[in-house]
């Protein structure tokens, strides 16, 4: 006869055989509780490593309110995504590390002004050290880069201040940083701009404590400008392309992901507003038997992403069936608002939000950031203006019209 013990009352999800080994792999669902849910009107800010791009796209496709504060000028037509517009909420490119995240916040509010401000590339064009691949072909002049960055920062501030949910995908622990001021770069200097100089740049591999500390610092700042934020942390399942440590890339990958997983756990455990979503586990777990990776064993398959997002929507969404169309909110830094968040976003327009941020952040430099001019505030006419002008120009080029025109 056996006595009563705690394992007799635990749910199926606690048993490996019942919830992993004996299930078809696509039915494995490792989420057992959530701290919050996401409505279709909640503005969702995304940032993180390249895996986070999948989340942005799927949110948009599913009719959720993927928040975009930095929109491409309509003169770019459909080329915006090539230049990082609409890939994430603002045009910050991949934010691989928690260190980049906290520094992005500080840079956007003028608290941190890294010594590495502008790099050049092999073509003599200018490159932003903190988003070196954002502008194909580079910026023409340093001034152009700085003007674009100023607008970018306004959009980043607006994103931090107006979102309801922030999804951050932790990607890496390895980073290259400035020896002068600790500025963390997304890519090693010299790869996509700048010049590597061992007297100025160094490799660093963040520890679990450092990642947790960076996340805590970021949350402290974020809650100051957006007290009602809800944050969802995930860990990217994508292995390292290469490691700059002396270890084998496989060892370095497992260490890196383990550190990120621990830090995410610590952070979620110590913040009511923060939850952890196990996309890493869904993709890499034994149930998938590696089938969620492409042949390069790095890229995640569409099927894997679908599994992740099904679980995501099941637990966090108000998923009463797919909503056709794109309900994304686009709020450019100049108050332009489209989509369901119009009233909220207008109320929290960039300029006012910037002042509010300055007041709340109360840090040196924040006032300066808030006083920067916002771009034009006229409602966005999209590309219709150019479409109409193209049509009219074709009329102007009509032979009959030209015959009238050239005969003066």
């Amino acid at each position, binding site marked *: 006869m056996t006595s009563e013990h705690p394992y007799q009352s635990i749910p199926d999800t606690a048993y490996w055989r019942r919830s992993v080994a004996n299930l078809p792999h696509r039915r494995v669902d490792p989420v057992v509780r959530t701290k919050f849910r996401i409505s279709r009107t909640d503005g969702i800010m995304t940032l993180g490593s390249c895996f986070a791009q999948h989340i942005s796209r799927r949110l948009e496709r599913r009719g959720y309110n993927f928040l975009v504060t930095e929109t491409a000028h309509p003169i*770019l037509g459909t*080329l915006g995504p090539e230049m990082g517009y609409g890939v994430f909420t603002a045009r910050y490119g991949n934010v691989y590390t928690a260190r980049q995240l906290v520094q992005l916040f500080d840079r956007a509010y003028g608290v941190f002004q890294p010594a590495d401000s502008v790099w050049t590339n092999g073509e003599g064009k200018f490159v932003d050290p903190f988003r070196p691949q954002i502008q194909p072909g580079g910026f023409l002049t340093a001034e152009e880069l700085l003007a674009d960055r100023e*607008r970018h920062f306004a959009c980043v501030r607006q994103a931090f201040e107006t979102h309801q949910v922030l999804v951050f995908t932790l990607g890496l622990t390895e980073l290259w940083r400035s020896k002068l001021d600790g500025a963390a770069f997304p890519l090693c200097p010299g790869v996509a701009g700048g010049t590597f100089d061992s007297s100025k740049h160094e490799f660093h591999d963040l520890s679990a404590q450092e990642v947790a500390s960076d996340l805590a610092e970021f949350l402290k700042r974020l809650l100051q400008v957006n007290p009602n934020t809800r944050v969802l942390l995930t860990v990217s399942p994508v292995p390292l392309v290469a490691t700059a440590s002396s270890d084998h890339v496989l060892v370095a990958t497992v260490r890196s992901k383990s550190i990120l997983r621990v830090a995410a756990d610590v952070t979620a455990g110590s913040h009511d507003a923060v939850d952890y979503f196990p996309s890493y586990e869904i993709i890499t777990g034994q149930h998938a038997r590696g089938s969620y990776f492409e042949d390069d064993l790095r890229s995640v398959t569409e099927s894997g992403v679908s599994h992740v997002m099904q679980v995501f929507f099941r637990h966090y969404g108000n998923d009463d069936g797919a909503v056709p169309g794109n309900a994304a909110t686009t709020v450019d830094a100049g108050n332009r608002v489209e989509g369901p968040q119009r009233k909220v976003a207008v109320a929290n327009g960039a300029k006012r939000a910037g002042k509010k941020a300055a007041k709340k952040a109360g840090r040196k430099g924040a006032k300066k950031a808030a006083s920067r001019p916002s771009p034009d505030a*006229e409602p966005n006419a999209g590309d219709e203006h150019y479409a109409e*002008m193209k049509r009219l120009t074709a009329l102007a*080029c009509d032979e009959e019209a030209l015959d009238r025109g*050239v005969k*003066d």
Partner: protein
Amino acid sequence: MSHPRVTIHIGQPQTGTGAIQAACAMNRAALADRWKILYPSLVEHFLFPYPLHQEFFFQRSGGGWRSSQEVCDFFAKAFEFSATHDIRHIVVSWEAFFEVPWMDLLAESLSRMGVTSDFIVYLRQQDAWLESAWKHWRRTMPGDPSVSEYALNTDSDWYNVLSLWTERFPKQNFRVRPYEKRQLQGGLLPDFFESLGYDKSLAYELARSSESEPTAGSRLAPDVVSMQASLRELNSRPHEIPLFDELPGDPSEDREPESHRLLSPDDRIKILQKNELSNQRIAREYLGRSDGRLFLEPWPDPEEPWHLGKTTSTRSDPLRKPRIFAIGHSHLAAMKRLYGDWRDSGESCGAEFTFVQLLQDKYKPELVEGQLGPSVAEALNADSWDAVISVAGGNLYNWLGLTEHPRRLDFISPDAPSAPLAEGAEIVPTSAIRRRMVAESQEHLALLTALRAATTAPMYHLESPPPIPSEAHIRKYPDPFRKELEVRPVTPAFIRWKLWRLQSGIFQEFCDALGIEFVPAPSDMVDENGMLAEIAWPPEPTHANQIYGRRQIRQIEECVLRAMQ
């Protein structure tokens, strides 16, 4: 890492490299799709039609060699692309056969990547090559040497140059082909693809390519040559006029890879004797020819009567006017109308123009699968032209900028980087706007490419007229933009000027890559701010008037004259 086969076509220059490159560049997508051959472009994406050769793989656009790391990066990306597109063969072409730094750069880069490449090179008989080189580069040669001085003092030992290559790469990796008509059975392109290991039919399937070989690089159309020769006949002392020194003798010779007969038989024999041993070694070592015959062209007869400028032209109308084929869209209208008026009134013009106004339905479609549409091709092939003038496209800056977008923008112009920016406007990265302009200009750039491929006549592209600076004038003659102008402001003139400059820069860059001369707006039609001079304003907002057209016709005549010189 496994990678596709890599072949590098290294020239030499003056051996039909332009024809090979044009055929490969304009058929990039087909080569990749049907034959799994990647002829990579560095512009926009790997299958973009431009530029023709791959100089920019190795040299920066502003000059200077790229680093080995950059070259490795290019190849790495090409390999990555190949892996995802089932590419089995990468072909790179740049005719820098004589460039030792290139040899070093390639050797270092390929070695770093562990890549083995094979090489293909066409060699031309020295006398013909030296004549051609002198014709092509004489303006850049110090001391303005005569053809004889240049040819007799230039080292043309091809074996020595090949040895520089084989010091760096295995000799067995080089495929040497004589660039000589009788050894190019079926033509240059079939020979090229056969040398790469493909069936000759591949070349035939690359529509039109074979029509342009082997003298696609020539800037002097046969009829221009002929006309020049006719002019020479009229002059009893041609050698006192420098112009005539440059002229080839027989018009038909300009089509052939053989001698232009600029050198005397004695000089040619001296040159061939000097290089005979070298040529024999190449024939034996690279082509396995035991008889040591690299070139089959007979040596000149020392008794052959010769004098510089000899011509066999039998043209009956030496005074005929240059025939000019002008093709384009709306900016062609002013010229076309003016020319029509001249003709109707009996007024004379220095050239005979044929206008192909592509706005007319009869010329649709302009392009079919990258080649000229049937009606356009028919018009082009109706005569042999002394020059082909393009006024294609050119109004993009107007539809992007005549009226101001609700999201006001400004950008930094590469032509005036320090010019002040519009206060309060959104500063859009210039490269981003340029990207849109390139995308929107595709059909016009493709038309230029197809035209270039379809004719060996000298080609010119006329820059579109600058914008009208006056908002008052635009509002006075607003149609068909009347409704738009009622609700939108006219974009500030300096921003419209910047859009126009950006557009011109794109066309100029593509023209340079295609070997088309880009002709800027006539300077006397441009005001002190670079805008359209008032005298050229038409009663509408987006073009120029007949006065401008008149000036353009004069410009074209000047261009043709310059080509003759």
